[in-house]
């Protein structure tokens, strides 16, 4: 296959791999027993998940009075967590869809795991509006179904309903996009299991691989499907966080009803998502020995995306401040003054530090290519983006028009437990995924080996 890539570019696959070695390296975690580090992390995640499920059961049984909400602050950690998790999911789609359209080959080492992260994150996100309803067993009322309460239909003018459609479309489309890409790689593991005469693995992966044979027609359709799904997912992912932001932007609460929200939320979502991808992959590449595929080059490229989106977020924060002053609206001005200097100043300044200042460190190549620094900054960004949502939601409503109803929000152990629980659900799913799924798109890696592998690069010089 003739290559069109400049030989001066850094290789995307190191250590002179062959096709067979790629198969071996990616299949190894699936075919071998888990080590102690995996069991430790898995147990911690499982415990957190069980604790969270306990807190959710308590909430569902007793009601959301178990949370720290009050009449003034009636949305707090639940919606903060919802927006945070949905945002994290966005990086997966950005990597798998938008970077595919831009023909960025480096996405191929990370897209599988990033998409897995998307799916697990959206599951965690969708949990929060569900349990916030209080009566989760009637949550199907958000769907436009014929019912016995007269002609009661859902309100198609409401952004909350748009969210129902956006999140469910996003989740299901991401899921099938991910799975269609997985089928050929499951077939690889299946055929290896047949050759190794491993009956259990053969049985499981034969089902998962859907009978994939890898003939020319199938690949032709596969490529067409991938391209069109990427084309559909690209506006979809932008629409999802746009609609999430409209939950706030279409209201009349000072601090919420700003037209800058959609682009600002989308940039923030990609920003936080990339930070989470880095947090996960920096650990995973070490634990399952994928340093040849997720290289320093990949980390540097992701850090550049973080710097870009982090800067967009920073500009958005400053624009918001400027506009609130420029608007001349007293309430608007107070909302922002209160954010920065009121009782939640610490949340505001944590957000500012983590999201605006720390990613700027990536202007230094040394820091961009340092694994330790990247890991620490990615954690900072994760925390910062959680605070961003907390600041937007809680500081805008805790001091409303009537000073007599001003209030603070204090989370109860249930609020905290459910958040930790979703981290546990996410962690449990991701740990299981990392040992049972091919964590790198095997077939895609093979297709770029000749143009971007280190052996080719060496010979081209």
């Amino acid at each position, binding site marked *: *296959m003739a290559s069109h890539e400049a030989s001066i570019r850094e290789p995307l696959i190191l250590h002179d791999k*062959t*096709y*067979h070695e790629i*198969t071996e390296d990616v299949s190894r975690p699936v075919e071998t027993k888990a080590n102690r580090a995996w069991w430790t992390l898995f147990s911690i995640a499982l415990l957190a998940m069980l604790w969270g499920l306990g807190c959710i059961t308590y909430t569902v049984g007793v009601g959301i009075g178990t949370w720290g909400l009050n009449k003034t602050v009636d949305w707090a950690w639940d919606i903060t967590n919802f927006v945070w998790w949905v945002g994290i999911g966005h990086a997966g789609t950005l990597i798998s869809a938008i970077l595919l359209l831009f023909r960025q080959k480096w996405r191929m080492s990370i897209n599988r795991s990033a998409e897995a992260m998307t799916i697990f994150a959206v599951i965690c996100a969708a949990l929060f509006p569900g349990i916030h309803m209080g009566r989760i067993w009637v949550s199907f009322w958000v769907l*436009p179904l014929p019912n016995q309460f*007269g*002609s009661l*239909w859902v*309100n*198609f*003018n409401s*952004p909350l309903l*748009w969210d129902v*459609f*956006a999140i469910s*479309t996003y989740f*299901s*489309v991401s899921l*099938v996009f991910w799975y*269609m890409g997985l*089928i*050929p790689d499951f*077939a*690889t593991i*299946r*055929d*290896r299991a*047949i*050759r190794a005469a491993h009956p259990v693995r053969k049985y499981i992966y*034969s*089902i*998962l691989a*859907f*009978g*994939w*044979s*890898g*003939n*020319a*027609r199938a*690949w*032709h*359709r*596969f490529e*067409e*499907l991938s*391209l*069109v*799904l990427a084309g*559909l997912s690209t*506006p*979809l992912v932008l*629409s999802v966080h*746009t609609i999430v932001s*409209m939950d706030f932007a279409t209201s009349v609460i000072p601090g919420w009803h700003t037209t800058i929200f959609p682009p600002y939320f989308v940039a923030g979502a990609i920003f936080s998502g990339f930070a989470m991808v880095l947090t996960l992959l920096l650990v995973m590449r070490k634990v399952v020995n994928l340093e040849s595929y997720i290289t320093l080059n990949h980390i540097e490229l992701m850090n550049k995306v973080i710097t870009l989106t982090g800067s967009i977020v920073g500009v958005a924060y400053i624009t918001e401040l400027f506009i609130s002053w420029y608007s001349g609206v007293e309430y608007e001005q107070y909302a922002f003054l209160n954010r920065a200097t009121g009782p939640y100043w610490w949340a505001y300044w944590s957000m500012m530090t983590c999201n605006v200042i720390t990613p700027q460190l990536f202007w230094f190549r040394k820091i961009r290519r340092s694994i330790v620094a990247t890991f620490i900054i990615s954690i900072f960004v994760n925390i910062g983006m959680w605070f961003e949502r907390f600041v937007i939601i809680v500081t805008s409503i805790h001091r409303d028009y009537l000073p007599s109803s001003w209030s603070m929000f204090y989370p109860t152990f249930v609020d905290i437990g459910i958040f930790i629980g979703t981290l546990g659900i996410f962690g449990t799913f991701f740990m299981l995924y990392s040992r049972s799924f091919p964590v790198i798109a*095997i*077939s*895609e890696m093979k*297709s770029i080996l000749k143009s971007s592998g280190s052996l080719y690069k060496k010979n081209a010089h």
Partner: protein
Amino acid sequence: MSQGKFIHGLFGDEEQLLASAKKLQAKGVHVHDVFSPFPIHGIDPVIGVPRTRLSDAGFIYGAIGLSLCWFMIYYTIILDWPMNIGGKPNFSFWQNLPAFIPISFEMTVFCAAHGMVVSYLIRNRLFPGQTAYNPDLRTTDDKFLIAIDLGANAGVDAQTIEGILKDAGAEEVSFKEAA
């Protein structure tokens, strides 16, 4: 799968397979199928794979999604039970359309994506429990296989085909009763 004798040429490199396919085509040999661990770019016109109409179908599914969505919205909150929301009653579909754009978009994408995926699975005969028919298990790892149906190429003798495959660098050439 048609019955008859097949020649299988197994390659360790997709470029060699592509070269052999081109030579075979020049000789007028019809290639039955090619099995590979990843898509071989440029093989489709050589072995006569027609362009898929999957994306055309996707457009139609999307259009159906949009129509269903507008019908749903029109029926539920314009026709069946117009609601007065914030003094802006839903008596007219068109005047309320801006508020329906997000859901219209989502439904279009939902139907286009899922419709295409279902069509793709049906066309490729992929479903849980389906048995794979790749003739060599190594074609999902690092080998590339070209299958030629001798029954469909009565005019060319098997030795010529074998010779072309071997010249192009085939690691193994074998005769099989069925593909």
